């Protein structure tokens, strides 16, 4: 497909680069790239690849735009809060470059649909926020022989690499197994500097364009680390792991598996033991007003406590409770009536279990956390 006069004008700054030129721009215009997630990383990746003229851009996301996304997800805006992210992306991109084709998948990426979706693309770009999807994406790319542009962010740090099992290592060569659930915070728990998404996402978009052009030294076999606070880039040399279960000499994985199970994530089903540990927010309010010997413990992080709190709650972050050192528990005693709460009720359930194991007998976890408190008890407590 030759460039038309409008395209020559639009892409002139690319055409002037000897490494791109007319031929390279035609390759870009014929390329098919799938972006997994249209969030923090997917936003700059999608915007720049659209501007660069990537012929077909696929976006897979099942989420809806939320106000709290706008701090970093520059694909979306106030006018699309509440809309499907893939629709918001499609509309935004139509304004940037109406000549490219945008394919949207408003669904969760699963072992059942991944191969079928990936097979139509030349390059897959990882902008996911969870380990099951990350391993699923890696495995599907290895099985299909597609290059994967990997990126990940947390707080002030980012990671970027390119995995192409035909030419170098894959994600499993680095991390054969996922971390135990809960050990690595995600962005919702750990926070993220919004602009970090642009740094990491634009590096990923750069690598995707280099793969399309076949130019430069890509990050295949290299791992970039970026620390925004220290303003430092570091690089590590990677090697293919001959024992890698999917791209090694004797692979044991020949098809996609159940990644939720692989990552130790049990589908959220209320077990009777969990329900027995929980207490309704209204009952907690009554107890707070009743006083005497009752302690409400907030197990969130200090930064979350500063955003909002329930009056009368004492802060003891979950990590501190899990260390099981009675000296760090703000003087609560085994005879106190204790209710723990967090943001949504997941961490507090862990805290309640840890306290029980330490011998605290009268412990409950407030169901739904401070979010439910905000909904039903005190709307002046903001949600974040």
């Amino acid at each position, binding site marked *: 497909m030759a460039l038309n006069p409008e395209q020559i004008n639009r892409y002139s700054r690319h055409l002037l680069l000897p490494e791109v030129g007319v031929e390279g721009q035609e390759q870009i215009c014929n390329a098919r790239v799938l972006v*997994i*997630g*249209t*969030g*923090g*990383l*997917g936003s700059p990746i999608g915007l720049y690849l659209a501007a660069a003229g990537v012929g077909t851009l696929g976006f897979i*996301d099942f*989420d809806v735009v939320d106000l709290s996304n706008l701090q970093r997800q520059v694909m979306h805006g106030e006018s699309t809060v509440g809309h499907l992210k893939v629709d918001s992306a499609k509309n935004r991109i139509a304004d940037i470059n109406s000549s490219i084709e945008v394919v949207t998948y408003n669904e969760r990426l699963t072992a059942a649909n991944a191969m079928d979706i990936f097979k139509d693309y030349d390059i897959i770009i*990882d*902008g*996911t*926020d*969870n*380990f099951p999807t*990350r391993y699923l994406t890696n495995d599907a790319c290895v099985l299909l022989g597609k290059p994967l542009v990997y*990126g*990940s*962010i*947390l*707080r002030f*740090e*980012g*990671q970027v690499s390119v995995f192409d099992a035909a030419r170098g290592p894959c994600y499993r060569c*680095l*991390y*054969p*197994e*996922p*971390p*135990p659930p809960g*050990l*690595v*915070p*995600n*962005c*919702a728990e*750990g926070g*993220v500097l919004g602009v970090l998404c642009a740094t990491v996402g634009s590096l990923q978009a750069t690598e995707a364009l280099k793969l399309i052009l076949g130019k430069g030294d890509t990050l295949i076999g290299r*791992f970039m*680390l970026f620390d925004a606070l220290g303003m430092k880039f*570091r*690089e*590590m*040399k*990677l*090697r293919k*792991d001959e024992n890698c279960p999917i791209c090694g000499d004797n692979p044991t994985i020949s098809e996609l598996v159940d990644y939720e199970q692989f990552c130790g994530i049990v589908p959220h089903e209320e077990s009777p033991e969990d329900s027995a540990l929980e207490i309704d927010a209204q009952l907690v309010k009554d107890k707070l007003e009743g006083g005497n010997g009752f302690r409400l413990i907030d197990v969130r992080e200090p930064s979350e406590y500063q955003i909002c709190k329930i009056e009368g709650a004492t802060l003891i972050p979950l*990590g501190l409770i899990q260390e099981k050192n009675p000296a760090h528990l703000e003087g609560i005693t085994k005879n106190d009536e204790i209710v723990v709460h967090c943001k949504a009720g997941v961490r507090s359930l862990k805290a309640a279990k840890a306290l029980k194991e330490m011998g605290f007998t009268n412990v409950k976890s407030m169901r739904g956390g401070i979010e439910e408190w905000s909904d039903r008890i005190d709307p002046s407590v903001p949600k974040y």
Partner: protein
Amino acid sequence: MTRLLYFASLRALAGKSEESLELGGETTVRALGERIGKTSPKLGEMILGKKVMVSVNQDVATLDTPVRDGDEVAFLPPFSGGAI
């Protein structure tokens, strides 16, 4: 002296972002992991369980990679973030 660097969430587990250790001769990443585990059990467990990526002098390492005085050993956990 061997310089150890901890990244991201490992800083909290180690209680520091870097430290220098006197090895007293050549050792391995595995032995280093065992030694770290004595002061930071969770971190030691993650290193020995291959849940973190280890590099020696900016080159990815296995548990059997030798570590000598003057080397720089970095520990990097997986990140989950991206879309959120």
